[in-house]
């Protein structure tokens, strides 16, 4: 038995023994475990599942063990992922800390910052939000105006963020602020961290077309931020921001994957039924679903391949834009098909039968996928400029 096979056998045994029955099978978007100071859990078993996975560092399998991560190689992490898929294990933790901030801290953070924040992130004890977009800085993110005034050992921050995911539930924020108003727009930005309980921070949820409020407006009114919480170099926060965006884009691109739930074909079969040959009794819809599944399978492999290229140092940093663009557009397609499959049943907005209109609300939520984290059009611009070197792009 090779070492990798040995690892697979051990992992399988450990997961069998430690993944509670309640934590297997589909998990609704609303039931995700986000952790943090005020963590809520669907069941006590979900709390246990997070504690067990966190203790092994398997909520961040490829992070170094010295910062609480799993310390696994990419090949070992792939084995872990496939074993988790095999038992349909629910993600123990959903976390902007794991997906976005952590990789940026590993690349740009000081030793103290890594030691302080990364283990908490792995164990799901701290919940982060991202302070990037502003009312006047959406696709043109580098136009941010939130101002940080130098006060010696700290800054005083004033300004407003928007589309801050779960700002009302987050413990800390990683935030882009303007530290040099006179520099060219990309060169006067810094990347800072602060506690959302700091005096002067207020949040206001924004109600979306789905009827839900995953995003907030976030206001900073004379907020004190310690200089020790600067990540990377002063005025070079754009480098950190871009690096982190690449991870965010990969994450949003991957949403079609993790948020997929039941296969569309099965949902459609339940709703519509089969013909005598066992085929979905709606040939046109069946063909569209098959095409989606082909693209979805190809996209999964494309994501895996990019991961392999990153590991082999063959990846272009802008490739994340491709994954973000394709994955978010595909997720929208998937939900259009889920609506078509559900027919009139999918139109219900309230009531127990429809889980308060889950199908329709999820469908509407996906429309933001190709806007948040940089629109599809911005991603295409990035691909044209950085990957294809087209003129004037």
């Amino acid at each position, binding site marked *: 038995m090779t070492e990798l096979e040995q690892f697979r056998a051990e992992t399988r045994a450990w997961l069998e023994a430690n993944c509670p029955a309640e934590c297997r099978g589909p998990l609704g978007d609303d039931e995700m475990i986000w952790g943090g100071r005020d963590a809520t859990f669907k069941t006590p078993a979900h709390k246990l599942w997070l504690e067990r996975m966190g203790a092994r560092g398997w909520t961040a399998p490829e992070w170094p063990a010295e910062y609480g991560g799993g310390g696994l190689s990419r090949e070992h992490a792939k084995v872990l992922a496939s074993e988790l898929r095999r038992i349909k294990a629910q993600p123990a933790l959903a976390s902007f800390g794991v997906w976005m901030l952590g990789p940026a801290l590993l690349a740009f953070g000081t030793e103290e910052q890594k030691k302080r924040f990364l283990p908490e992130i792995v164990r799901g004890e701290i919940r982060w939000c991202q302070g990037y977009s502003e009312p006047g800085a959406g696709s043109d993110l580098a136009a941010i105006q939130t101002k940080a005034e130098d006060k010696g050992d700290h800054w005083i921050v004033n300004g407003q963020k928007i589309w801050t995911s779960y700002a009302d539930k987050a413990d800390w924020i990683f935030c882009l602020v303007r530290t040099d108003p006179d520099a060219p727009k990309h060169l006067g930005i810094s990347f800072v961290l602060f506690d959302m309980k700091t005096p002067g921070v207020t949040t206001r949820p924004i109600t979306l077309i789905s009827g839900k409020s995953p995003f907030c407006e976030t206001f900073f009114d004379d907020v004190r931020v310690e200089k020790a919480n600067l990540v990377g170099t002063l005025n070079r926060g754009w480098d950190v921001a871009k690096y982190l965006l690449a991870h965010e884009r990969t994450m949003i691109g991957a949403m079609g994957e993790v948020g997929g739930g039941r296969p569309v*074909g099965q949902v459609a079969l339940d709703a519509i039924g089969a013909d005598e040959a066992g085929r979905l009794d709606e040939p046109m819809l069946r063909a569209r679903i098959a095409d989606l599944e082909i693209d979805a399978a*190809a996209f999964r*492999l494309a994501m895996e391949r990019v991961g392999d290229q990153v590991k082999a140092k063959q990846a272009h940093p802008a490739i994340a834009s491709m994954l973000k663009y394709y994955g978010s557009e595909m997720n929208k397609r998937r939900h259009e098909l889920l609506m078509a499959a559900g027919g009139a049943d999918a139109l219900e907005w309230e009531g127990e039968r429809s889980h308060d209109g889950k199908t329709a609300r999820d469908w509407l939520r996906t429309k933001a996928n190709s806007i948040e984290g940089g629109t599809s059009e911005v991603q295409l611009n990035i691909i044209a400029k950085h990957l*294809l070197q*087209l003129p004037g792009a």
Partner: protein
Amino acid sequence: MPLILTEEQTMLQDAADGFLNERAPIAHMRKLRNERDADGVSRDLWRAFGEMGFAGVIIPEALGGMGLGAVEAGVIAESLGRTLTPSPYLGSSILSAKVLIEGGSQTQQAWLPRIAAGDAILALAVDEGAKHAPSRITTRADRAGNGFKLNGAKAFVLDGHVADALIVVAEADEGTTLFLVDPATAGVVVERTMMVDAHNAARVTLTDVAVDADAVIGAVGGGEALLDGALNLGRACAASSLTGAGDQAFKTTLDYLRTRKQFGKLIGEFQALQHRAAHLFSELELARAVTIGAQLAIDEGREDASLAASIAKAKAGRVAELAVQEAVQMHGGVGMTDEFDVGLFMKRVRVLNELLGDAGFHAERVARAQGF
């Protein structure tokens, strides 16, 4: 396994690209076409291809080949897709060789060293009607004396007009059966079909063709598994050729976008074209990933290898189709000329798409495999 080429595989790719760019660039195909070459394919080139080892890529080393797998077979297929070289590679070195490797008797396997050397060309006769439908074979194999009598009509037999031997898929009472048939046998009529892409195929009619029992490859009625294995590998290789052809058409188009001026600007500055190019780039990344993914599934002997090959063939086919259509459109009038190459890619992709099942055929398989 990682979904990227190993160092050895990259060297193979460089060797194949180097050989084809030097010996058989697109001009080679144009010459065969324009001179109305009797065979439409160069035997000399094929022997040189054999000397390089490419023709025996999947054939065991003991039988004169390189003994490599589906990923390597795909590497060479992709290179052939880039240069549009007419070659018996897919029909002889992949489909026929795979059948003989897996099911051939010792006598039948004597063909393998000759295939590897580029001395012999074999062809697989599976299709019959306008569409690929290997589960609905109507060619009959009826017992007669010590052997069989074959009757039926085959179409889209790759390089069948120059084949030294044919592998015929027929239905016997016991089920699908594969036969190794000498095209000189009485009752075999081979007609070369001139195709849109100047590559080569044939129609083969079989009228009371008498073959001995030892013409059977593998077991009587046991042809389905043998055929499936060859078709899966063939589809994964066709996906590579599609990706290669699509990617080459894309590269040509990018060059054009960077040099062609209109309205006082390089046309690549126009966002209408940039976004389409960026979308196509994304699609090509998916095609590459799904293709090598299928080849690894085959090499690892995974259960889902057949489904993976279908997904790869469908996806690479759709992507290549988009690539060549965008190539012609973005080139404008010059894209419509015979002198310029992009139209040749469009023709080749149309043929590769139809070969071994088009995207619709494979989407149907995917739907069935997923139970809807």
